């Protein structure tokens, strides 16, 4: 059994996760959320470890994990840039902002820069429609964004 995981450390961590969240099938989403909270993404070794501890097949975890947009399978960059593309932001010019962020960082949305500094994501609404267009960097919302201010901001976060 234990040789399915790469080391016992992972299995111990998996046991911790399951003890904290619960190990029944209806807990699959919270379990994945906990794994992502710990590792920043759905690290395969820990998902497999949790599957082993709970006795639920890894396929079930990956089936659920690939369905929901919250989950990711690659590590995040140091800075998380979320470009809001809700309707209010779209009407206020989210597309040109996204273009500007993509060309400044040299990556497409959903990707992480090779140096691991930035992950760029498009989100459908941050609920701050009165400040449209908005960008969220590391959890902080910046409203009434312009392309010039955005590149300036990204420059600051790079430091």
């Amino acid at each position: 059994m234990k040789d399915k995981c790469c080391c016992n450390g992972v299995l111990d961590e998996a046991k911790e996760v399951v003890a904290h969240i619960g190990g029944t099938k209806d807990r699959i989403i919270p379990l994945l959320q906990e794994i992502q909270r710990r590792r920043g993404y759905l690290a395969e070794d820990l998902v497999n470890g949790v599957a082993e501890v709970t006795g639920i097949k890894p396929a079930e975890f990956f089936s659920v994990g690939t369905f929901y947009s919250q989950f990711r399978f690659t590590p995040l960059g140091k800075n998380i840039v979320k470009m809001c593309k809700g309707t209010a932001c779209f009407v206020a010019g989210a597309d040109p902002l996204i273009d500007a962020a993509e060309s400044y960082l040299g990556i497409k949305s959903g990707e992480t820069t090779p140096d691991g500094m930035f992950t760029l994501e498009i989100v459908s609404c941050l609920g701050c429609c009165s400040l449209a267009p908005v960008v969220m960097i590391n959890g902080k919302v910046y409203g009434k964004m312009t392309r010039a201010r955005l590149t300036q901001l990204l420059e600051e976060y790079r430091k």
Partner: protein
Amino acid sequence: MKTDIIVGLGSCGIASGAQEVYDFFEKNIGGSDVALKKTSCIGICFQEPIVEVVINGVKTAFGKVDTAFAEKLLAGVRSGRLPETNRIFDDEGTKSFVGPQVKIALKNCGKIDPENIDEYIATGGYEGIKKALAMTGDEVIALLKESGLKGRGGAGFLTGQKWAFLKGAKGDKKYLVCNADEGDPGAFMDRAILEGDPHSVIEGMLIGAWATGADEGYIYCRAEYPLALKRLKIAIEAAEKRNLLGDNILGSGKNFVLHVKEGAGAFVCGEETALIASIEGKRGMPHLRPPFPAESGVNSKPTNINNVETYANVPRILTSGAASFNKYSYGQSFGTKVFALAGKVKRVGLVEVPMGLTIREIVEKIGGGSSTGLPLKAVQMGGPAGGCIPESLFDTPIDYASIGATGAIMGSGGMIVMDSSSCMVDVAKYFLQFTQAESCGKCTFCRIGTKRMMEILERITQGEGTMEDLALLEELADVVGKSSLCGLGQLAPNPVKTTLRYFRDEYIAHIKDKKCPAGVCKPLITIEIEKEKCKGCTACSKVCPVQAISGSVKQPHVIDPAKCIRCKMCIEKCKFGAIRVI
């Protein structure tokens, strides 16, 4: 003298800098007799951050407060002379914004500290459940039916009837679910209620549990709302301590346990059978109804699902009676509806209006009309499942049937105002892109049909569409709607259908004239410098990322259309308004 300083700490208030203002007060308020409190979003988003000062019960609200003004405010509190500026209710705009509104669901939002159960109780909170406990379940359901409350999530089904189904369902275990997975882009009504008045939702569910016989409940809230989740958890814990949740509630013998379930980001989970699958830990894919959730829902047990705003209305109907609610009516719609008013209006915010108010009154009176000076063109209601209502129909009243007749839907309450700078083909493409990405993939017509529709819209916005494409688009819109299992697929064609119905000339301009009248679709526009207006300041050529602009200092500049990528950076930079889109 008792003085309170209350800072509005909703998500958008915080985004506008309210937390810094709160921190400033916390640090500088000292050991004086001034109490610092917090509340949530009052809905007047255009004035954020908002601080209220209450001296011996007299309230004065200040808007657009930064730390510099907070310093003035604190000095004013100490000297007894509050600043005369920034008073939001002296502002005519705020008066017209607030004037036509009626607050039922949002009654407490921005007025109480949502993290303090005593403040909720002080406003008459948990009186509704006490009243309900003195009635039978059937009496509660009859009262709700009499009030005319309909599901505020968008479908508009009579809430009392829905509850009656659950009550009548056979089974010893029943569930009550609150749908707080507010997935519509551009909508934040539910978030505001959860952040601002979480106990109203808990109490509404409690009343529902009593009326229907449910003993376990879930609030399914999207993970993107961390503040709402935090406040919900605080509220549930406080209610448990007061024996308002748990076993033998208030000595009635009634048990009700409530859980919070964090969503994981899937728009389709707004559909009730998909939401149930997600609660059970599965992929959020809808299934065929019947069986309806009232027969077989969570864990195959009878289940009732309502949305946040619906539950928030319930305690108020119990305490003030059905007549206090249904005195606001239009046709078969009763009470009020909350809208997240955003887009190109002067005053954006969260508004609650009585049924029957017209779209024009909301947009022009409450919202103050166009914020850009450009003429308004449409409002989008109902998000990706809704449609665009043109300016010519702005006199349509807020009423389920009247809005439905335009081809849009009442929806959950997103209301985005668009001016002439929005291209309606592009808007249709935007919404379809959204539903296309969010389709769970179960039904062929939704999965592939929306993809094919998307490709047609892409062709049209690239200037490669044909008139046959329009006919095909309409045919696809029809079959996708008819052949999909759940609301997502059934309603996904709505944005395309309504824009084709009201803005067909824009589609034709893209196809026949190869022009985008709003100047949005890049392949169909040219950017040009007007010689007469250009001063030769060189600002545009410096900002151009592709060196498409040439010219000597103090001489009119020229754009090379072959190099230009239509990014419009030069237009933003030009101080003389010399660059235009044609």
